[in-house]
């Protein structure tokens, strides 16, 4: 009952957000210079041919009508058909989703496995010292400010000169060839994880630093608890609250399709699909892809909200 009262406003807010996203996606695509007809027929084309294409796809209707038709169809489960391949968009997206999911899981696992412990260590060390500068902050700042395409390009360069073990491109499903799959997926996964490591490291570090100054930690020290017990019992859980937020945001961002990294490493995931759809002005792909990414993102953030309430008993009880 309390959970429902806690979730209901969030679900409402999520629906409003989704409406906003759908309008934005729809409009921004329509406002891009050049339409599907230009891409399909090329620059030297008669207005008549253009009109035929526009009419066939309903592009001659007013924007409001186009929008409402789109939303209505989606409510019925129809996310449209790719104008280029004439295949249902939803099927294509679902086919590529596992690839993006795997990439996201690799990046998230690495980011958590490296970022969280480093953040805890960095925070604990910083709190017990008088001067609060240390390498954790430097690494965090650097990792967070290096763009994916720079890092990815550097990695591709390095591994194309010394091929080592990794491969760029040539994706095979994990079920078919696990080793071959990892050879192509680890590099893009690692590239994506660097930002996550930095993000989680910094958030964890700041959270730990803040928790360490709370009186209940002093109280635990005063009871003669060992540092290990204090970290395990009191710090990890209290510091996890802001970390859950950024992890959820980061994971949602990864699932939405890490477009640049997928393009760079030719990973056939959702991001690459949307990217190609955008190049072709294949409206249905981009619209459905971005909207579904938003749905995933919002859902994950709502799960994070539930997770908070489980970690911090004060959250669910507040009014």
């Amino acid at each position, binding site marked *: 009952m309390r959970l429902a009262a806690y979730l209901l406003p969030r679900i409402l807010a999520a629906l409003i957000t989704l409406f906003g996203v759908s309008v934005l996606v729809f409009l921004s695509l329509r406002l891009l210079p050049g339409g599907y007809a230009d891409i399909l027929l090329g620059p030297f084309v008669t207005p008549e041919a253009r009109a035929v294409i526009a009419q066939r796809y309903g592009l001659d209707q007013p924007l409001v009508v186009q929008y409402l038709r789109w939303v209505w169809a989606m409510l019925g489960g129809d996310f449209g058909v790719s104008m280029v391949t004439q295949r249902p968009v939803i099927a294509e997206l679902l086919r590529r989703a596992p690839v993006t999911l795997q990439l996201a899981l690799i990046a998230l696992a690495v980011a958590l496995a490296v970022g969280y412990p480093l953040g805890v260590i960095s925070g604990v060390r910083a709190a017990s010292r008088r001067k609060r500068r240390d390498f954790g902050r430097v690494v965090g700042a650097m990792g967070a400010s290096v763009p994916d395409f720079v890092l990815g390009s550097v990695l591709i360069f390095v591994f194309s000169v010394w091929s080592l073990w990794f491969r760029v491109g040539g994706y095979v499903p994990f079920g078919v060839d696990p080793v071959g799959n990892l050879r192509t997926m680890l590099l893009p996964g690692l590239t994506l994880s660097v930002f996550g490591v930095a993000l989680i490291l910094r958030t964890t570090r700041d959270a730990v630093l803040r928790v360490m100054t*709370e*009186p209940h930690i002093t*109280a635990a020290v005063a*009871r003669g608890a060992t540092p290990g017990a204090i970290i395990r019992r009191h710090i990890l859980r209290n510091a996890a609250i802001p970390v859950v937020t950024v992890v959820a945001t980061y994971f949602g961002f990864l699932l939405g399709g890490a477009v640049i990294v997928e393009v760079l490493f030719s990973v056939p995931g959702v991001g690459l699909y949307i990217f190609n759809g955008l190049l072709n002005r294949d409206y249905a792909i981009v619209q459905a892809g971005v909207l579904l990414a938003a749905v995933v993102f919002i859902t994950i953030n709502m799960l994070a909200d539930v997770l908070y309430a489980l970690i*911090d008993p*004060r959250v669910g*009880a507040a009014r």
Partner: protein
Amino acid sequence: MTAMTAPLVDIADLVIEYDTGTRQVRAIDGAALQVFEDETLAIVGESGSGKTTLGMAAGRLLPPEARVLGGRIHVADVDVSDADDDALRRLRHDKLGFVFQNPTTALDPTMRIGRQVALAMGGRPAPEAIAELLSRAELNEPQRILRAFPHELSGGMAQRVVIAMAIARSPQLLIADEPTASLDASIREKVMATLGRLRAESGASLVILSHDLRMIARHADRVAVMYGGRIVELGAVGQVMQAPAHPYTRALLAAAAGNERPGERLRPIPGTPPILESRCEACAYAPRCAFRETRCETERPEPRAFAGREVVCHRAEAVIAADQSPRQEAR
């Protein structure tokens, strides 16, 4: 009182400074204090007087900015400023119990009370033992409180939980920093009474840090008045309250509500407490003192025995004399 045995706490010539980044602030300026077994000592002073620094120093619980520059702190025969981390942890674990000012922040907000109390008791106590400990701290419905989270308790209940945790391992020394300051006025007295009863039952010593001289007087055997990082007056509560020998003690009593006569005004202490940056070579209270004379501003007063107590004042005789005549008339 057992003033003959070796003191439980022996602090001498203690100097502590805080490094604020831009300058050094001296919080303790040569303080000396002993706490004996089975007694309640109140340390009284305004905020900034150094009482919290002194109390926390007894368990080496000071923040990393604090520096102990001199003197010694012995607690239960352990040299606190010299002990290694392990010895210090054993001292805190076996001999010390702390009660903090704000009970709701002194408890882990994400952990149920039962588990926190169990951790304080050590080992794996049975639920009945935990409930029994909470009952000793005069908490009704201990079963319900065991399952509660800290934010679900009132301030008074939370402070009783904190007190229960502090006495869980029968410490020899309890240090309570403003234990009732964050509570409603109506329950302060009751919580203090519980703390005092538990101390008496266990035979531990209790050090209360407080700004409220009158409230503390009802619960302490001895009182130490702090000013400018030093103990300026130290003696039995009755003596000090009846006839203060330090002008600051006298001003504190006049400024506090309690037993003023109808129509009498409370007199706030003029001026502000000093912020020292090095050893004070005069009387730190001189700028605010009504009794000061030239040497108060040039000569650092040293502790001396006077009128059955210890006082750090050049003018103690004059201070006591000033109170004698009107008080006797009133009686």
